C-alpha cells in the first residue's frame, strides 16, 4: 500500500505535552521516509503493551498487535520468527516491560532477536494514575508509595548490556532529530536493538527541568567497546544528580536468533508421508 494516511482516525487521548506525541511523530517520519525510499509499509509490524504508550497501536496506520501489559516482546518474537522478512518494532512502557514483562526483555536480549524495542520511559505509571516504576527515582512519591519509594531504580541500559543486547541507546523526546536517527539505526541494526527513551509524563512526572539541566550528547565514544559502554551507561543511575548521556552506547555484530524451519512449507501430502515414515520406525 502506498500513499496511505499514516495516522488513523482514532481519537487521540494523550495528555497535552505528553512525550508520546514525539515518539509517534518520530515513527511517522520514519514510516514516511521508508515509503519514500520504496519500502512497503505492509512489511512493518508494531507491537505495543498496555499503558499510555500502547495507544500508539491505535494511532499509527500500520499493522499492529495491541497486546497485554508487559507482553510485547513474546508476541513480537512469534511474529518475527514466523516471518523474518518483517520489520518488528515494540513500543513498550517502563512499567510494562521493566516490571510486568522484564523476563521477556532479558531473554530477547540474550537471544539477540532481530527486533527493535522502544521503551517509552516516563518513569511513572500514567494510565493507572501515578505509581512508581522500576526507573522511578529513590523516594518517588506515587499513589502506592505516598511516603516515597524505598527502592532504588535499576539502570535498564546496564541490565541490557549484561543480558547481551547488541544495540543499546538512550534518547529523549525533546531531542527529536537525534531520537529519529537512533530509532532508524536501531531498525537497521541486525539483532536486538534496545532504546530507552526518556519522556516526561505531563500529569504525573513532569520532569522537563530535571532533564534539561542534565542531558548531553555522547561524543568521542567507541560504541564497540564494552567496557567504555559500561562506564558511560553507569554515569547516571536513574536517581542521582549525574549528567545524563544521550546516544548509542553500545553496538556489536552477533548472530541473530533463528531457531527453526517454520518457513519450510510442506503440503498436506508431504506432512502425511512424513508422519507415516516416522511411524514405520516404531514397528
Amino acid at each position, binding site marked *: *500500500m502506498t500513499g*496511505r494516511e499514516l495516522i*488513523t*482516525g*482514532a481519537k487521540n487521548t494523550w495528555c497535552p505535552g505528553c512525550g508520546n506525541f514525539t515518539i509517534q511523530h518520530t515513527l511517522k517520519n520514519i514510516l514516511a521516509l521508508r515509503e519514500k525510499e520504496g519500502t*512497503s509499509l*505492509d*512489511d512493518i*509490524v508494531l*507491537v505495543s503493551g*498496555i499503558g499510555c504508550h500502547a*495507544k500508539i*497501536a*491505535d494511532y499509527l*496506520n*500500520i*499493522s*499492529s*498487535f*495491541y*497486546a*497485554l501489559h508487559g*507482553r510485547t516482546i*513474546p*508476541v*513480537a*518474537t*512469534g*511474529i*518475527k*520468527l*514466523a*516471518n523474518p*522478512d*518483517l520489520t518488528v518494532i515494540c513500543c513498550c512502557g517502563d512499567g510494562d516491560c521493566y516490571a510486568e514483562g522484564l*523476563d*521477556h526483555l*532479558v*531473554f530477547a536480549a540474550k537471544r539477540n532477536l532481530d527486533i527493535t524495542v522502544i521503551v517509552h520511559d516516563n518513569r511513572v505509571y500514567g494510565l493507572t494514575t501515578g505509581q512508581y516504576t522500576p526507573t522511578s527515582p529513590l523516594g518517588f512519591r506515587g499513589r502506592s508509595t505516598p511516603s516515597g519509594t524505598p527502592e532504588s531504580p535499576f539502570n535498564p541500559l546496564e541490565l541490557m548490556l549484561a543480558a547481551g543486547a547488541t544495540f543499546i541507546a538512550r534518547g529523549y523526546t525533546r531531542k527529536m532529530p537525534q531520537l529519529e536517527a537512533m530509532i532508524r539505526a536501531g531498525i537497521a541494526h541486525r539483532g536486538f536493538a534496545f532504546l530507552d527513551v526518556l519522556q516526561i509524563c505531563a500529569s504525573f512526572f513532569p520532569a522537563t527541568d530535571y532533564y534539561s539541566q542534565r542531558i548531553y550528547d555522547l561524543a568521542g565514544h567507541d560504541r564497540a567497546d564494552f567496557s567504555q559502554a559500561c562506564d558511560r551507561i553507569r554515569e547516571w543511575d536513574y536517581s542521582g544528580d549525574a549528567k545524563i548521556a544521550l546516544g548509542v552506547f553500545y553496538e556489536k555484530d552477533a548472530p541473530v536468533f533463528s*531457531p*527453526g*524451519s*517454520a518457513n*519450510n*512449507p*510442506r503440503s*498436506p501430502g*508431504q*506432512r*502425511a508421508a*512424513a*508422519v*507415516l*515414515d*516416522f*511411524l*514405520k520406525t*516404531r*514397528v
Partner: protein
Amino acid sequence: MNDISVIIGGKAGDGINSAGAIIAQLINHLGYSLYLYFDYPSLIRGGHNYAIIRGTDRPESPGTHALDTGFLLALDQATVDQHAGRQQDPAAIIFNADLVRSAGQGVPVKTILQELQAPEIMGNSALIGGFAKAAGIGWDVVEGVFRSHIPKAADTNLRVARRAYDLLKTVKAIPQGNNPPRPLVTGNEAIGLGLVQGGLDAYVSYPMTPSSGVLHFLAAEKDRFGITVLHPENEIAVILMALGFAAAGKKAAVGTSGGGFCLMTEGLSLAGMAEVPVVIVMSQRTGPSTGLPTYTGQADLRFVIHAGQGEFPRFIVAPGNAEEAVVWSARAMDLAWRCQVPAFILADKTLSEGTYSMPFPGDPGLPGAISGWDGDGEYRRYAITPGGVSPLAAVGTKGAVVKVNSYAHDEDGITTEEAGTVLGMAGKRTAKEESLRRELARYEQVRVSGSRDSSTALLVWGSPAGACTLAGEALGLRVVRPVVLWPFPGDALRAALGGVNRVIAVEENQTGQFADLAAANGIAVSDRILKYDGRPFVPDELVGRITEVLR
C-alpha cells in the same frame, strides 16, 4: 481373549523405560496389541520405577494395564518385594541374580557381561534375553526387534541376550497373536503427529511433566516435519509467542500441564478477545499445585472450561487413546483456525506417557482449505459476518493493515468503549460457538462401547476409556464416552444414552467434574466412581467398584 502382562522394575536410572519399550516390541511382534504403563517417582536416580506391558490379541490397544502379571522382570529387590504377590506363576519371575533374591529364574548378569566384555548398561539385554526364553519367544523375533530398535551396538546386545536366552528355561510360551505388528507410540507422540497432520508450523512449550514428551518428540523430529520448536523463558512467553506466530500467519500449538497453564490464562483470554487461533495441549497430573508430578488425574476439566477472564468460545477434546490423539489433534488444529478460537487437547499422564499400539493413520478427514481475506477493499480484522468468523489476514499481508487488539475494539481493530460496538463484537465472538458446533457435526463426538443395549451406562471421558471398556464388557454395561467435551455435546450424549436408566460416572478426580456438567445439562448421574490417588483405574479394580455400586 488372550491377555498377557509383563512387569519390569528397577531403580530410577536403570533404563526401565527403554527396556520396557523393547519388551513391548517383542510382544508387538508376537501379534499382540498393547499398552505400556510407566510408573516412576519424580526423581532422577534411585527410587523404584516399573513398566507394565499389557498385550491382547484384539486389534485395538487395551489402553490400560493389569495388576496380576504373567511375567515379572526384576532388576532390583523392590520389584520382587512390591509386585511378586500379584505374580501368577513364581517360576515366571526373571531376576538379576547379582542383586535380587527371589523364587524363579536368576540371570547371572555380571558374569555374562564380564565374559562378553560388555558394558554395564547392557545388563538389561540379559534380562530381556532371559525373559524371551521364559516366554518361549523365538530367537528370530528377538534378533529382529533388537536390530530395529537398539540403534547402537545391536550385535553386542544380542550376544548378551543370547547368553541369558540359552541359560534359562521356557516357563510358559506366549501363544502367537493375530495382529500384524503395529507402530508403538506414546500419547504425547500421537498428539505431536496429529498436530503435524493438522498443519502445525511451530510448537512452543516450557517443559512440564507429563506434557514434555510432546516437546521432546517434536524437537527431535523438527526437521522431518519442517516445523519450528521453541522452549522459551516461561509459559507466559510460550502462549504469547504462539499468538505472535498465528498473527503472522503460522499455525502454532503450545503444551503444558496445570501449573504452566495457570500462567497461560492471561494469554488465553487474549486469544479469545483478539480472535487469534491457538492449540493448547493440556496434560493433567495429580494436583493441586505441584501435586504428584509423575502421576495422573482428571481434575482440571473445570479449570480448562472456565480459564481466562471474560466469556469467549473454546473447543476442548479429550482423546481416549493414541489413535484418537492423532486424529483429534489434527482436527483441533483445523477447528482453531477455521473458527478462530482456542482449541484444547485435554490429556493426562496415562495417555501422554503411556505407549499404545496404533494403526497407521489415514486421512484425518478435515474439510477443505480455510478461506482467508480476498484482498478486496480495506481489510477489517474484525469484520462482522453471519457466523462470527472474520476473514483472516496475517500481519505482513500486502495491502492490508491488520490490527489485532486485546482491548474491546471495532471492526477495524481500533480500541473502543462505545456500548453498541462492544455488544456487537461480543455477539460476533459468541456466534463462533455455533459455527464451531456446525463444524463439529461432521465428526463422531461421543463414542459407545461395551454392551450397547444395556440400560446401565458407565459415563467416562479421556484416558480411563480402556479400563472402562474392559470393565463394561466384563459386566455387560454400556460405556458412553464423550470425546468432545466443549462445546458440551448435549445432543450426541443424550442420543448415546438412549434407553439408559442408570448412569454411573467414572472419573479420576474427587468430585465428578464431568458428572456435574452432565447434570447441569439435564443428564442425571446416579452414581460416581472416583479415584484421585494419582494411579489410573485398572479393569479388575473397576469391576469390583462397579459391582459394589450395583449391589
